[in-house]
């Protein structure tokens, strides 16, 4: 299956659907700082890989699929859950890239400037995740 980007998908998203994502993402980021201050960076660092996007993302995908099916007069519950399952499967592949992101930041942050470390690690996350997805699709 070919990967494509559809800018028009943005028009189908309501602004209020981003409110839970903003609040959840902001809360986890703030919490990571608070936990690191209270219990040290060893514990706080765990929260840097907290699933901040997946719960609201999968829920919205399910909702959109159900709405699409309802428009053509069909029940979309199972279809919605399958679409959310595919999103979560993609996230598990992205988590492999996230492991590499963390390793690169850990190893490079002492020796390289931050403006170089974060882009290098982010590009590595995307390349590894994308490659792992291609391999997974071909299986």
């Amino acid at each position, binding site marked *: 299956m070919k*990967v*494509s*980007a*559809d800018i028009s*998908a*943005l028009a189908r998203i309501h602004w209020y659907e*981003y409110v839970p*994502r*903003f609040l959840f*993402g*902001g809360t*986890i*980021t*703030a919490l990571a*700082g608070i936990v690191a201050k209270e219990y040290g*960076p*060893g*514990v706080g*660092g*765990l*929260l*840097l*890989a*907290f*699933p*901040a*996007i*997946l719960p609201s*993302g*999968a*829920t919205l*995908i399910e909702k959109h699929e159900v709405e699409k099916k309802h428009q053509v007069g069909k029940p979309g519950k199972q279809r919605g*859950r399958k679409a*959310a*399952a*595919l*999103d*979560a*499967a*993609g*996230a*598990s*592949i*992205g*988590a492999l890239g*996230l*492991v590499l*992101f*963390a*390793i690169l*930041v*850990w190893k490079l*942050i*002492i020796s390289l400037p*931050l403006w170089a470390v*974060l882009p290098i690690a982010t590009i590595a996350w995307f390349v590894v*995740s*994308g490659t792992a*997805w291609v391999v*997974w699709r071909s299986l």
Partner: protein
Amino acid sequence: MKDIVIRFVIGGVVVSAFAVLGELFKPKSFAGIFGAAPSVALATLSLTVAKDGRGYAAIEARSMILGAVAFFVYAWLVSRYLLAGKWSALRVTVSALPMWCLCAFGLWWMLLK
């Protein structure tokens, strides 16, 4: 307090930005990759380095490796449960969050404490 508010706003913006990116791509399984974007890390590491230094950020990043392994377990379990089709996405993703906590803190306890 100011630091927490700044973290909250930056975290909210970065997480939302990656969520938008995830909406753009097809198929769904590829778009799902963005559900595991390093959004919280990108939002917080610059502030951490500026305030507490690189050594502190390196310790956080080392622990993040274990958090990411826990993320893999969490997302895989969520995917399996959703495919079973018994529970809604909200119910599955939220009820599996303690599994992430258990896995992340358990690994930290065993390997880094």
